[in-house]
């Protein structure tokens, strides 16, 4: 019992330093939400194009443009349903998976460009959810895929996980028909 004060003081000192070191924050690992795609063959096995592949994102939006008239006057004009393209991945070799951000629009088209030889189109309809978690982490945009369509070069696309947030996981599986080799 006589040792209690000494033990107590030791606990207090430890607690003091421990408490100060405890102050931390836990933001998600990624500030941006990426949709992750996996390329597989008809048997579900991962495949990669034999040529470098680029990924281009497209969306449509009403864009404000400024025209300069003959008299030098600048006039503002809105061009409706303009297609906006963004090269998200440029000529990457041996790409069996890729992750790209979706747009803040409700529909994003992903183009897989196989070195100019073939272009496959994937159109994703999605809901967007602005999200707040902590004043230290900032705001984030999450998506939920509701529908996906594709061009003829692709066999099918499976939505593995429709929720696209800042935790990396497979969201879409793209099936290609690949000739079996001996």
């Amino acid at each position, binding site marked *: 019992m006589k040792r209690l004060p000494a033990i107590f003081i030791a606990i207090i000192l430890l607690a*003091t330093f421990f408490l100060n070191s405890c102050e931390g924050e836990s933001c998600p690992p990624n500030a941006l939400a990426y949709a992750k795609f996996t390329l597989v063959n008809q048997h579900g096995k991962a495949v990669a194009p034999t040529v470098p592949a680029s990924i281009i994102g497209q969306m449509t939006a009403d864009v404000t443009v400024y025209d300069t008239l003959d008299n030098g006057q600048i006039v503002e004009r809105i061009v409706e349903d303009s297609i906006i393209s963004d090269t998200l991945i440029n000529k990457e070799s041996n790409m069996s998976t890729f992750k790209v951000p979706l747009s803040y629009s409700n529909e994003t088209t992903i183009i897989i460009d196989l070195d100019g030889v073939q272009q496959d189109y994937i159109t994703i309809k999605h809901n967007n959810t602005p999200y707040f978690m902590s*004043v230290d982490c*900032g705001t984030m945009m999450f998506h939920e895929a509701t529908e996906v369509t594709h061009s003829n070069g692709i066999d099918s696309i499976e939505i593995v996980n429709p929720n696209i947030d800042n935790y990396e996981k497979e969201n879409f599986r793209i099936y290609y028909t690949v000739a079996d080799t001996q």
Partner: protein
Amino acid sequence: MKKKTSGYIIQWLILSSLLICPMYVFAQKGKDKDKEKTEKVKIYQGTTIGVGIAGLGNYLLGSDILTGEVTLQANFLNRFLPIVEVGYGKVNTLSDATDIRYKTGSPFYKVGMDYNFFHNKPHLPGFLFGGLRYGFSSFVYDVDGPTMTDPNYGGQIQVPFSYHGVNTTAHWLEIVGGMKVKIYKGFCMGWSVKYKKRLSYTKHANTEPWFIPGYGENAGTAFTLSYHLMYNLPF
């Protein structure tokens, strides 16, 4: 910087409490002990009212967070100390890094009980205790952030970020350990370390609460330190 300041304040409060510890060592011994053993212990031994001042001190020194509480604690058998806490927590902060403003202010409530580890030593001027609390708060918060601009696709689409009047309820448990010491007549002071475990809170589609009144920053677990001034009511 504010976090560091509050850290130093906490250290100062804890270390200043150490000055009281020698009282345990030099407290009167022997002569009262035999008397204590023979006396019959009363069931009801009084009620204490207290105020938490650490949160108020932090706020006055520049913190964005204000937390204050009033406690009412009964004493049974000098061993079991049921307690009710009613407090108010508020924050109105603007992050320099993210430019997000978070605002809330609401009461919180806690009920629980402490156990006096020195119950058989009433001759001492203070005691160590441990206890449990259940806390909850129902509150409304506002979040305003800068307009979100798509970082890709030419930055053509912008989405405003402003959510006001978000209703939330949070529940949590606290494990408490601390000390209480008489300072003058019926007046006492004490501090306690609280380990908090969040049980649940309401999530909304676009936001989750960053600060919960009475709990602190919204994490799964948290440590906080309370510093109380108390008065033993004369009944």
